[in-house]
């Protein structure tokens, strides 16, 4: 765990343009960076947290509940890291166990039942890799969350606010819009894990981070992220500013999807699912040799 907590060494005032991917990893993991509950407190009112998966327990690394945002009731679900070691121990460093994902699925179904749009805040190093998590079906819990999100009958907007750590992050990110803070990262594996496997040395994480293309800029370019939320001064230094900007961008996207696919209207469910399927269906980079002999390169989904 010591490696994933590495946050030291990003100097204040480093020019945003000169920030390396590794600098952004450190910013994304900064203990002073606002976490899910900070966003809920600042942007939403009347939050009622809903606990438990009704099967085994309540996961404090993944929280959710109902709140008022922009004049409407939303279901807000997010990973929750702690601000210090004590909190982090209670929150399992923001790494959900299967109970967390099963709670997410329960709350997603709840949102569907009452036709409430969903806001997801993404901030996790990874899904918990412990023995108990394996015994209770971590893989299945994540997969079912993916399926529930892909098939959701209400609109959803996800915001990567800090660390988008692999499947643990994706599990609650299959949304109609994916937004990302400028200094957040979103990756298929942690740079440490990637370096440990391919470089045979987790200390080479900074190099791995560079080649993995995990910054908001990279992912916007790949057509995976819909909008980058600017963070002129890192959120760890000016949390309220970053939260306020996030609120504006989130409000706009949520308004758009809710207008296009009104929750509660049966007629909008089919087109909503169809639009979401198309969004994820096109993501990838492959080449395809057509029978007529013309090579089609499908690389930038934005150009399709």
């Amino acid at each position: 765990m010591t490696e994933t907590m590495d946050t030291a060494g990003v100097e204040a005032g480093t020019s945003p343009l000169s920030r390396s991917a590794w600098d952004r990893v450190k910013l994304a993991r900064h203990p002073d960076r606002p976490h899910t509950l900070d966003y809920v407190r600042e942007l939403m009112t009347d939050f009622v947290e809903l606990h438990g998966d009704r099967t085994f327990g309540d996961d404090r690394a993944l929280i959710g509940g109902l709140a008022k945002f922009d004049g409407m009731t939303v279901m807000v679900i997010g990973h929750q890291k702690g601000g210090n070691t004590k909190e982090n121990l209670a929150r399992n460093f923001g790494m959900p166990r299967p109970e967390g994902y099963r709670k997410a699925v329960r709350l997603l179904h709840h949102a569907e039942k009452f036709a409430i749009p969903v806001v997801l805040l993404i901030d996790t190093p990874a899904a918990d890799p412990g023995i108990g998590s394996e015994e209770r079906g971590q893989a299945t819990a994540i997969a079912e969350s993916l399926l529930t999100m892909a098939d959701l009958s209400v609109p959803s907007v996800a915001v990567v606010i800090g660390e988008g750590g692999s499947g643990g992050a994706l599990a609650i990110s299959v949304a109609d819009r994916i937004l990302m803070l400028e200094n957040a990262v979103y990756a298929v594996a942690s740079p440490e894990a990637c370096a440990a496997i391919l470089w045979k040395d987790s200390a080479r994480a900074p190099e791995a981070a560079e080649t993995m293309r995990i910054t908001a800029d990279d992912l916007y370019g790949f057509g995976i992220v819909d909008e980058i939320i600017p963070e002129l001064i890192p959120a760890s230094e000016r949390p309220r500013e970053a939260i306020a900007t996030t609120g504006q961008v989130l409000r706009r996207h949520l308004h758009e999807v809710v207008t296009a696919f009104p929750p509660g209207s049966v007629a909008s469910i089919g087109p909503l699912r169809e639009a979401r399927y198309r969004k994820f269906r096109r993501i990838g980079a492959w080449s395809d040799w057509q029978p007529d002999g013309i090579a089609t390169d499908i690389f930038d989904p934005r150009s399709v």
Partner: protein
Amino acid sequence: MRDFFHRRGKFRPLVTDDDRPEQQIPEDLWTKCPGCQELLYSKELERNLHVCPKCDHHFRLRARDRIALLVDPASFAEWDIDVLPKDPLRFVDPSGPYDRKLAQTQSRSGEPEALITGGATIDGRRVGLAVCDFAFLGASMGSVFGEKLVRAIERCLADGVALVTVSSSGGARMHEGLFSLMQMAKTVAAFAQLGHERIPHIALLVDPCYGGVTASYATVADVIMAEPGALIGFAGPRVIEQITKQKLPAGFQTAEFLLEHGMVDLIVERSNLRPSLARLLDLYAPLHHQARVDGRSEAVAFATAGAEDRRD
């Protein structure tokens, strides 16, 4: 004390347990079983579907051998062989650039990518088939894997045919970064469509199956089968040991462990796979037909509901 030696990962031999099954005794005449250490006559092993006759250890199979084992002879027609991988990140690690690694892997494995898809019959029943080839970069799931699987799902959707997936994978392919991670969402989303049409997805998990594949399409199947002794999980055992500093219990992450914890429907011996699949396909066949009739009436109801909505 044993733990002390265990943790010195750096000094461990480079040959891991994962490599051992491929280890061959001179001339491939004899094969040592990693399960019971017996020397087995290779021809006999082959006749026994690559299952150790002494201890029932199921050896890993290449995708083409797996297909031959599961479907009727000469019934397999491959799909999308022209969907080929790219190097979107221009990924470079100490072993070199990813595109070079791809070319090397393609020539060494004889396969263009890690997933082979196609249509076939199982004892006369039409099915779609998607089979992982672990010899191709650990059958890691990248863009081509996801795209070929989604196209296979869409074909099964159009033809109303069940899909059988055979998964064995190290997880998402790191060399394609977030494109790989997104294939988890993309394949699951396609399976959601298949589910709406009540077309069954039968998943067979074989050794080893981990990470992004286990945590996506493979475990949202309608029926999950596993081969005896297969290792299946989310995080790999070494990662869990390193992070939790705990010794893993005996039998951890085996198919039997998953069955006991309620994560798979059934464990099926290799020799019994084809009849089991045929029986299941038959059980779904009448429902499936019903679903297609119902599907039409549902579509009508849906349109009516929409019209009411507009009146409001």
